[in-house]
């Protein structure tokens, strides 16, 4: 008897909770969204992953950010100027408060920069150019760099500001670091200046955000809550969007785009991405690995161009990428460097390719190998398979070696570099054209790190001269002209075989408005629920 009563009572309780929940969802505007990976920890300086950094960008803010067209925009800094080539002065925004109510000032900036520069921080390369920091007043700060550093603001767009007092109180002055067994308080709790704050977190399962009432900036959203639910499997993520359990998700796998478009309740947003996919070739060894006959055919510009012209990039775009790629003529997206838009690819022409090979002394082609990741870029393995068969048509017999990305880096990266040809994708650090020039095009120099991603190890004296000149050139127009010249050299000499920029594809339920960005950042403050 007593049991039945209890049962009845609990049934009633459950029913009323359900009813309440039903009401609550009717009034509350909750945006549920999903992407591939969980946020491993909340420490803004304890991760280098693009996705966690972009999610944390709703909670923490940088001094300088990028707007949806990828132009620099002031965030916590109101303005900045170059006082002299090695000194930058930043004017901070007034009236900004952290989620705990503390106000934001120059001390917080100095503290945050020191925290990022901490020897345990994985982001410390981003601030290593700072020689000293001087607080002029509460809202003005000067950074002195070792050498002229024209792209300082670009390098800091994901360097987030933390509260000095809060971090010190909670013993969180050192970033989370797995190597040194440091588990920071800031990895589990958060206190930023951003438009949203973290209110609940179940690791691997969900992170719940609510708007911060004291946010300094203008917001366009009408949300009461945002719930992030990581779903790794592509199929499951698509199913969750179709069934309405989530309102938005990315990336949408290419084969599911049509299905989301055909569904009445969902739509697909597509934009070209910033990363450029390319092929590189060993241009250092006298006797290339995995290549027959003896010698290194890739040292001959005619051979490189022959390979270039043997690749049917439109075919790859249509057959493999479902039309969702932007063929590239150089190593950077035109969204990041406008002159890149003017450059033209060498036309696809197998006959010209065969002729070039014959001129170079390979009338019957040659044997070589191509290293490709198989879980890194969109359809990476299939693109390499297609390239392999296209090269076979002009007589180049390619042994395709695909591997998962962590193995791939070990093989392709310095100092191993065990490849004849390799595939790579690159989004420039700081989204700046100079980063491509310095890392991918310069001659390898261990001391400065120049050319460290130039895995094929080609060397061009003029490019190195340009790099040196650009480093201290603060005039934007001259700088761009120099960089453009270097890109042109790379094109003329065919040092790389650029392929395309892949697409950013988001899936959204009808009645949800979001602003898609080419860098895959999802800004909660621009999202609206209108259903």
């Amino acid at each position, binding site marked *: 008897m007593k049991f039945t009563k209890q049962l009845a009572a609990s049934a009633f309780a459950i029913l009323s909770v359900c009813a309440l929940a039903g009401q609550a969802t009717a009034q509350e505007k909750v945006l549920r969204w999903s992407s591939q990976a969980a946020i491993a*920890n909340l420490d803004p300086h304890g991760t280098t992953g693009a996705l966690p950094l972009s999610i944390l960008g709703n909670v923490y803010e940088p001094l300088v950010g990028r707007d949806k067209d990828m132009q620099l925009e002031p965030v916590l800094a109101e303005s900045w100027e170059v006082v002299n080539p090695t000194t930058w002065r930043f004017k901070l925004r007034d009236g900004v408060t952290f989620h705990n109510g503390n106000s934001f000032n120059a001390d917080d900036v100095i503290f945050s920069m020191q925290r990022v520069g901490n020897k345990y921080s*994985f982001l410390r390369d981003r601030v290593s150019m700072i020689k000293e920091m001087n607080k002029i007043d509460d809202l003005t700060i000067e950074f002195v760099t070792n050498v002229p550093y024209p792209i300082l603001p670009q390098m800091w767009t994901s360097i987030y500001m933390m509260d000095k007092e809060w971090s010190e109180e909670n013993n969180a002055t050192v970033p989370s670091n*797995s*190597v040194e067994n440091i588990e920071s308080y800031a990895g589990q709790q958060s206190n930023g200046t951003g438009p949203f704050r973290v209110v609940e977190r179940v690791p691997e399962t969900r992170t719940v955000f609510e708007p911060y009432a004291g946010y300094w900036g203008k917001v366009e959203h009408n949300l009461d809550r945002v719930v992030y639910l990581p779903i790794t499997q592509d199929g*499951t993520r698509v199913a969750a969007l179709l069934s*309405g*359990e989530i309102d938005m998700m990315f990336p949408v796998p290419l084969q599911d785009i049509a299905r989301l478009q055909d569904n009445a309740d969902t739509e697909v947003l597509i934009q070209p991405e910033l990363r450029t996919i390319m092929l590189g070739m060993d241009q250092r060894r006298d006797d290339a690995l995995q290549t027959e006959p003896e010698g290194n055919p890739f040292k001959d510009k005619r051979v490189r161009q022959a390979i270039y012209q043997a690749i049917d990039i439109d075919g790859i775009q249509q057959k493999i990428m479902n039309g969702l790629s932007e063929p590239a003529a150089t190593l950077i997206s035109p969204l990041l460097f406008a002159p890149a838009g003017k450059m033209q690819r060498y036309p696809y022409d197998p006959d010209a390719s065969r002729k070039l090979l014959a001129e170079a002394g390979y009338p019957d082609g040659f044997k070589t190998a191509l290293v490709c990741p198989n879980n890194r870029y969109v359809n990476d393995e299939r693109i390499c398979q297609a390239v392999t068969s296209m090269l076979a048509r002009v007589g180049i017999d390619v042994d395709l070696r695909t591997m998962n990305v*962590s193995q791939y880096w070990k093989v392709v990266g310095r100092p191993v570099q065990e490849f004849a040809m390799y595939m790579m994708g690159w989004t420039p650090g700081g989204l700046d054209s100079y980063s491509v020039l310095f890392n991918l095009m310069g001659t390898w120099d261990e001391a400065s790190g120049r050319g460290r991603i130039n895995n094929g190890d080609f060397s061009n004296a003029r490019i190195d001269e340009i790099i040196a000149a650009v480093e201290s050139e603060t005039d934007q127009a001259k700088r761009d002209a120099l960089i453009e010249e270097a890109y042109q050299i790379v094109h003329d000499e065919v040092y790389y075989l650029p392929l395309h920029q892949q697409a950013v594809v988001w899936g959204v339920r009808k009645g949800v408005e979001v602003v898609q960005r080419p860098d895959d950042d999802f800004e909660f403050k621009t999202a609206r629920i209108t259903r």
Partner: protein
Amino acid sequence: MIRYVSGRLAQSLLVMFLVAAVAFSLFGFVGDPIRQMITEDASQAEIERLREVMGLNDPVTVQFWRYISGAVHGDFGVSYFHKRPVGALIAERLPATFELAGLSVLLSILIGIPLGVYTGLHRFGRGARALMALSLVGISIPTFLIGIMLIYLFSVILGWLPSFGRGETVTVLGGFWRTGFLTTSGLQSLILPSITLALFQTTMIMRLVRAEMLDVMRTDYIKFARARGLGTQAINFRHALKNTLMPVVTVIGLQLGNVIAFAIITESVFQWPGMGRLFLQAIQQVDIPVMSAYLIMIAFFFVVINLITDLAYYAIDPRLRSNALKGTAHA
């Protein structure tokens, strides 16, 4: 008895040590953990410094020794990716996997055994034949496909059940155990993954019980029991079924280990926040501490389950009990 158990435990420790050693020597081929920890544009000097700090430049044997001596003290290191102690990571995910695995084993026993008895007794019946045909499907379709089909049917088309995750969970046992059994959405979320995981086991148990039943029903003592006029119920369940259980228990025991170890696929299809997904992620991220700890733990489960299975024989088979008693008496 005690001597038997402790002997088995000593063996188990050796097995676990060997598993750890083999696993550790394989990790050299998985890839470079540093590349997963830093940005692509990090400098060579930074990479070298990290390798040095993490001890990755030491010979594998030295690294292994360091790991094992930590593990003996219960310290499995810190995950490279999650940047938290591995012990804590596993403890957080253990409940999710155990609830899923436990429920699916329970389901497979509760459904598999009765169906096995039924198909064994009515081997030419229409129902039994249909069940046998269906069980072929269950045994031959891969788990992930079943999972995806269930999601599309029950979540996308019908909209009855959630397609991913554990739903609302509450913590019990002093905050250590996070359970999905106490909330409506938690229970709803359990249905599809546990069916997915249970399907293979169910069909296997059913086929096994059926085969055993067919054997047993032909034996003399069943005929004598019939001749004595015992009731059908008593013959089928008290005498026949009980004698089929030995192999069934062995298989269920081994399968429990498999269910925990191979929940990986089901967990990844349903975004179930359990240990399998932790392991899968660890492989992608070259998270060596997590991979080692997981493999050692799975080895431990198998060893313990085998031990329990052996002990269960004693409970089921009186002959073993008396032999064991004699054995200990002699020793």
